[in-house]
């Protein structure tokens, strides 16, 4: 097995290099450098700051052990550490990071959370943990900022629920959990580009879609900006959303540990060596139905040796490249910039020293740098090879 795959890979690569003619444009990522964080514990999360545009530094953050580290990808191919935050509790284990920015000053904001269930908000300009949010009953598995409103933070937790926070006013806007919600840990979530729908998945093998465009959600989000806790007598009327707008268990047969919107489609993975691209309802159906039992699978991106859970894939900002790592330290990259998903070509990135499970991958905004983080506290940088 182990010797079979490399030959295949080599063959594929050679073929591509030799031909250089056919239609599917190949993705070439080349190993540039790697570094190891000194704690030696798994790094579970990595995120590029995709709010930084062309010409601005390429900055990414990692979460592992009780540390949150901020790095910069240098032009010479190296990685430079910029800042490192360490939780006072040595027992803390950060799982996830997310980037946003201060809407007033435009300064970057980094959110991190992990096993203690405390969301920490770091202001990188002042180098401080400026806020923290408690409320989740257990570990937090993923954080996501609303794509349209940088103040809205979505967190998913081991306590079977999702929460949406307004980090500007420190208000819990909504919880998504309860009677019809996830029955086990929620592992991953994503908000679509327009900010209208949340998709979440978890250990109960299910994927659930929650609309954010309902009247109550819209008005509560608005209210969260104007609510004055010191004046109000009653606590903020947090929305308790118990009923998802769509729910399915038909896509995966195991823990669903990563999910992303791809336009109106959803990419999700379980520990079954495949990323499934699917959509709720029938192919031509546009509306979500609460009791809909139909799902349409568009495509499956298969790869190998990724049977453990909590392995995340990622897309670049323009959603043209998809990357996932496996438990042998191999990274699979698909070019999605094609008209037919069946044409998506997979390339594999390997390095003899990269053998630990790759927990998460992250693309820079342009997709020209891929960062992967491993269980052995290593961070790997892969740069896209210039195409002719």
């Amino acid at each position: 097995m182990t010797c079979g795959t490399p030959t295949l890979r080599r063959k594929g690569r050679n073929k591509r290099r030799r031909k250089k003619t056919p239609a599917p444009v190949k993705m070439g990522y080349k190993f540039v450098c790697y570094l190891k964080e000194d704690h030696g514990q798994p790094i579970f999360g990595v995120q590029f700051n995709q709010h930084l545009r062309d010409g601005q530094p390429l900055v990414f953050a990692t979460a592992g052990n009780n540390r949150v580290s901020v790095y910069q990808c240098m032009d010479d191919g190296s990685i430079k550490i910029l800042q490192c935050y360490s939780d006072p509790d040595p027992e803390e284990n950060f799982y996830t990071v997310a980037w946003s920015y201060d809407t007033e000053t435009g300064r970057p904001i980094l959110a991190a959370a992990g096993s203690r269930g405390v969301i920490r908000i770091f202001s990188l300009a002042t180098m401080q943990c400026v806020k923290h949010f408690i409320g989740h009953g257990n570990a937090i598995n993923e954080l996501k900022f609303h794509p349209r409103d940088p103040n809205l933070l979505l967190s998913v937790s081991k306590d079977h629920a999702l929460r949406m926070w307004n980090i500007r006013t420190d208000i819990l806007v909504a919880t998504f959990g309860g009677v019809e919600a996830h029955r086990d840990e929620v592992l991953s979530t994503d908000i679509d580009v327009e900010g209208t729908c949340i998709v979440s998945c978890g250990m109960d093998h299910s994927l659930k879609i929650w609309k954010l465009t309902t009247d109550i959600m819209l008005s509560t989000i608005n209210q969260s900006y104007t609510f004055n806790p010191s004046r109000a007598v009653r606590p903020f009327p947090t929305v308790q959303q118990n009923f998802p707008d769509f729910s399915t268990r038909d896509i995966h047969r195991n823990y669903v540990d990563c999910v992303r919107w791809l336009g109106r489609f959803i990419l999700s993975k379980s520990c079954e060596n495949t990323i499934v691209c699917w959509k709720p309802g029938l192919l031509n159906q546009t509306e979500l139905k609460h009791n809909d039992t139909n799902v349409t699978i568009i495509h499956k991106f298969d790869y190998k040796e990724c049977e453990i859970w909590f392995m995340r894939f990622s897309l670049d900002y323009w959603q043209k490249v998809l990357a996932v790592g496996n438990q042998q330290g191999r990274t699979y990259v698909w070019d999605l910039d094609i008209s037919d998903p069946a044409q998506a070509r997979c390339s594999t990135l390997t390095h003899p020293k990269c053998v630990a499970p790759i927990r998460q991958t992250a693309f820079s905004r342009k997709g020209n740098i891929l960062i992967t983080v491993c269980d052995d506290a290593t961070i790997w940088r892969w740069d896209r090879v210039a195409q002719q």
Partner: protein
Amino acid sequence: MPQKKKDCLGVDKPVSEVQADHELFLQAFEKPTQIYRYLRSRNVLSPIFLQRTLYYMRGRMSRSHKNRMSFKLDCLLDKVTQKSERQNERPASYLNIAFTGFHDDKLEGVCGDVARVETFIVKMCHKKRKESSAPLMQVSVGTQDVNINPSEGEGGGGCGRNACLSIPTHNFTSSNGHQVKSYVLVFRVSLVHDQENAGEPVVKRRRVGRSASQDSQDSNIPLISTNAINGDSHGGVGSTYAGELVMFDRHGRCLLTPGQYELMLELQAGETTQLCKSSPKKNASWESIDTLKFDGIFNNIPVLKFTLNWNSENSTSVIERPRLRPLKPLDVVLANSASTKPKPQGVASPEAPQLVLYQFVYNNNSRQQTEARRDFHCPWCSLNCMALYSLLKHLKLCHARFTFTYVPHPKGARIDVALNECYDGSYAGNPQDLVAMPAGFAFSRSGPTRRTPTTSVLVCRPKRPKPSLSEFLEQDDDFDLPRSYILGHNRLYHHTMTCLPIQPHELDEDSEGEHDSEWVRQKTQMMIDEFSDVNEGEKELMKMWNLHVMKYNFVGDSQIPLACSMFLESHGTELLRKSLYRNFVLHMVSLHDFGLIGTGVVYKCILHLQNKMQDPSVQKQLAASWEEQRRSSKKLFSSYNGSSSSFVSPVKQESTCSSATSNGLTEESKSSPTKSNVVNKKCCVQ
């Protein structure tokens, strides 16, 4: 030599032992000590509280609030007028200064000469915020000639009379224009030789300088004399000396009591020297009496002697030289440019230097080390606690990582220091501080912050036990510790649904007691909607009834009649609008079947509902739905002949279905239900 070696060997073992012992000592005390050292420097840089405000640190508080006891609002005006009067009648209307002489040992040769004393009043005004230094105003009030080194026994230098200066006190009123902090009398003495002296040969004057330099060699203040030489040789005009005398202290008290003064003067580099460069406070420093050697200093430093008194009359410019009384030691000696500070009040009277022995007990109480101190400084914070009680209290409260036990000792006090095994570092304060946003706001280093409003003690004046050292003695377990006086609570509660901490202002609102939360209502409706063997009308009635029962939480059979009438009251019209008349009647019947309501109740309820039908809008609605249903039923049953009665006819379709329902109910009625809830459930289960 060999013996010494042996000695060394003999000592060697104890040395290692001492080292090991020291290791153990460090092991026990190093970490907490480091922590407290860190906290100390942090508290010095940015304190979160002031020691002097602690009640047991009263010794450090320099303010007494005695005036507050007798304060009355009405007295406010009186006080101000009194104060202004007092200022107006400053001891007297004139301040008379009679100069008795200018003494300088270095000027022995010029005995009998005259020095010119120019007196200035310097007003020091309050510094305004933007000004970098306090504004100064300088007024010259007069120039007098004073004898140099007049002999004590001599009746008077040249004329037997002394130069006298009178300054009207209105110069010192503190309320003219600028708010004046204090006045300083500045004396500038210049050695200007009068006509007779001017004719003296230069050599003589040189001699003065030389003699001064010779003097300086055996004196220990060479700097001044060198200056003197320089001033002498460069200017050739004569040296200038200056001295200052502060008139009022911070509180507006007059420092210049009548008496004889010897003012030490300092040599000025030149005539241009600015007087009173800075406020005297800045140069002031405390000097202990031991370090001051009076003999030497007064012998070598030029001194201006004068008598000062406050008088109502203007003195003539020259007065009789008074006979000198023996100078009382340290009566009023004002060092140059040093203002006297009032002694801080409330300082614990300096007790006899006591010995405080710290006995560090470690390694399971098996080892100890003793350290002695002669003062009441905290060994960790180096905070001067002024008294033993304060020290012990401070140690106990601020250094909780250790335990302190006080043991009386013949030489003073012994304090046994041991590690506090029970210390867990947990936060004992208000938990609201911990969750306050932003993180660690309560401990914010950027300044004072608002206190969290949970525990608000309005008035609490517990009788404090008299401070006594006995509370630090080793205590038996049953010792009655004074209780802490926290009223209210010091707990943090959380919202049940969101798990967020309950903010203090939300405490009074108990929002989470309701038993029919939105999600239960929604779920109930969704579950009823999923039934496949009941029609839409029945589903509607089930939802309405179930939500109604859930809302009011009827628990007993006896409440069912009430539930029915309330249901009709709130949902009656809606029922009719949705054409659920027959469904409701059927529901009443089945309730009766289960023995939950009597026939009377059924009758009353139906009557109630029929009364509601009188409403014209309802009638219109009923007619419309009847029409519609007749049309649809015509399609279904072409042979059907509609009845003319608007009541009986409404739902043919429903009546067939509801018969099915009643069948279902009778089937299940075997298991005799007793509670209304069960009936509800049945209703859903259908």
